[in-house]
């Protein structure tokens, strides 16, 4: 990358990243590489404030990827940097295998994005707004206007002025605008904003259908529940830094979890379990015990708990493994970071 002040891809950086990808970096890299989005050491400052801080992000192709973080964490800024809406102060980045901003024209040709609240010319109809955007793309984009409008469910309102659209309809129009370029990569910044429950369901289904077509969808959001339902993988960003990333199932698998036990004598069961070396935290509840197991505890520990209780003469009626939700995991990760400071 040769952008102003952006440091070139260095061999010393990111040894944990794929060496195959780094070895053919910059111009020679294959456009159909493994990663839809790839950033290394990306930094964006606003004065003293570092909005994007040394971000290492790898988004696999063909999945729904959640980019999570609290408000002000730098999610939108990263997206703006990726799309060339603002420049990076340092680092390298690739979209669909093309270095940006050097090859932004080729890279963005197959990228669709909504950044912040989608806004359009209010005095024009939805169709006319899309005509303006299609004209800036390849000639074939003009022919995708009607299908895109139909796909997002506003074809019947396509000839109404955008000033008469609801927030949800503008959000849909924004998605339609993304589809004009037949994108391989969609970057949606808070796409659920302004949508009613039915609209959110539609949006979720649409994202899934886009992924099923082989497209990559990057979803920036603070709505953890929506991300958990929609995405295959996530990255957690806090204060400009990516602190965790990976497939949701694998991230949660490594997190702490709870085992709920319904048994005959909870108080005695508590004493039995506190005498073990599992490192568990046990609470007595009216319906039994709630046992919290630390991160990276193997599932065999559940069987071991059962064995200890049965051998201690406790009748076990129910033993349930409660996996932490993404929201619980997110809060535990971010609160731990906050406590460490």
């Amino acid at each position: 990358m040769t952008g102003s002040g952006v440091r070139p891809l260095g061999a010393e950086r990111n040894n944990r990243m794929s060496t195959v990808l780094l070895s053919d970096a910059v111009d020679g890299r294959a456009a159909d590489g493994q990663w839809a989005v790839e950033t290394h050491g990306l930094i964006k400052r606003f004065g003293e404030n570092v909005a994007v801080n040394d971000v290492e992000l790898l988004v696999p192709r063909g999945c729904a990827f959640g980019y999570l973080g609290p408000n002000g964490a730098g999610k939108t800024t990263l997206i703006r940097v990726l799309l060339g809406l603002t420049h990076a102060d340092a680092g390298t980045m690739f979209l669909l295998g093309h270095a940006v901003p050097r090859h932004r024209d080729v890279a963005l040709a197959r990228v669709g994005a909504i950044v912040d609240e989608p806004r359009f010319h209010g005095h024009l109809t939805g169709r006319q707004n899309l005509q303006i955007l299609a004209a800036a793309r390849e000639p074939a984009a003009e022919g995708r206007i009607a299908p895109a409008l139909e796909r997002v469910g506003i074809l019947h309102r396509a000839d109404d002025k955008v000033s008469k659209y609801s927030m949800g309809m503008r959000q849909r129009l924004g998605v339609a605008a993304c589809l004009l370029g037949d994108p391989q990569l969609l970057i949606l910044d808070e796409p659920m904003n302004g949508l009613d429950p039915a609209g959110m369901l539609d949006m979720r289904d649409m994202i899934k259908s886009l992924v099923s077509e082989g497209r990559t969808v990057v979803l920036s959001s603070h709505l953890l529940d929506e991300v958990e339902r929609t995405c295959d993988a996530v990255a957690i960003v806090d204060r400009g830094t990516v602190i965790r990333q990976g497939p949701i199932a694998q991230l949660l698998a490594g997190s702490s979890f709870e085992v709920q036990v319904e048994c005959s004598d909870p108080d005695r069961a508590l004493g039995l379990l506190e005498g073990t070396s599992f490192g568990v935290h046990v609470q007595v509840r009216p319906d039994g015990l709630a046992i919290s197991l630390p991160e990276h505890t193997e599932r065999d520990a559940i069987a071991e708990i059962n064995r200890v209780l049965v051998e201690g003469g406790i009748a076990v009626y129910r033993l349930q493994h409660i996996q932490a939700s993404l929201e619980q995991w997110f809060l535990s990760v971010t609160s731990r970071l906050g406590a460490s400071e």
Partner: protein
Amino acid sequence: MKTISDVDPPTPGTAPASIPTQVRSDHRGSWIPTWGMVSTRLMELRKRRGLMIALIAVNIGIPVVFLAVRLVSHAVDPKSYGAAGGYSIFTSLVTGFMYIFGFIVAAVVGCTAGSVDLTEGMFRHLVITGRSRLALYLARIPAGLAIVIAMVAIGYTIVCAVCVFAAPTQLNYDGVVVPQGLSRPALDNWAVTHPDEVICNFNYNGPNPPPNVPCGNGNGPSGPTPVVKTPQGTIVPVHVTRAQIRAFAVTMANQNYSDYRATFLVPSTSLMIDVGLWIALEATIGFTVGLGLASLMGQRTVPVILLIVLELILTPLFSRHIIPHLVNLERGIVGVAMVHIEPGGLPTPFGGGGPGGGGGGPGGLRLIPESTLAASLVIAAWIVFWTAVGAWRMRTRDA
């Protein structure tokens, strides 16, 4: 920390192949806008109802209403109301209204074209397409000019048509019906045969008039009485011979010949072409400066106000008041330069005197001296500078 490279990435789906050849060859990175970009930008501007109403009202509506009122008045009462068209109406309408307000509405269109993508949130969508930002900027110029110049052309064509086809049938010079196109000797001869009209109506620009030259149209309390019009305009009763009257009429006709020669029944074709190009250039300047300034500032209101101040206050002020230490700065004002390339035969804009071809005619205030070459360079510099400034800001602005 668990990173995505520590775990298996999701199995890719049937991702579309790499960037199609069509996209690679659509010159998306080129600074040259496509026809589609220009035409959709034109549509975006054309659909702005308020802007179009203002543009039509100034360039077409007000001149048409003005001429229509004159046509009707003349048709109803031709003795009280003069012809709707003609040379004097043409020059007054062009320099007194279309030139000045044509610039202002063109500037408003330019400011709108330069700022609405930002203020209405479309700039971000356009940048995300990967299209060159310079091409996005340049697409606005032909689109905006297509609207502005078309409006100017329509309004101006109507004005020309009315001024030609509804022109007076006789040349009225200083209130006297005079044959058109007379040579100096012919005008002298005509003055000999019409001494009273000449003496009583033509302007006298010399020293004190010779005494005893009467004006036969003087109306005293006891009927027509010979009088003479002094430079101060007072009518003085005198007693002179007819020969003296004729001689003085010839003198006055000679003094007024150059002024008479520049007075026509209808504007000539060459004058109409020159003036049309001149006001089109003024509108072009208004649009491009407005576009660049609004792109620089990222808004519409302040640039519009600044350009109105430039056109209505600064230009008239600096075109006539020479400030010795700032004279070159004054010459650098585009409005001052435009007055210097004004087609001959027009009165100076901003309330100047008679025809002077930009230099201020008899009775007009003197303009700051500036060569045509220097004026042309100033105009070109304004267009290029503001286009470059707007394009630079468009390329560097955070979207």
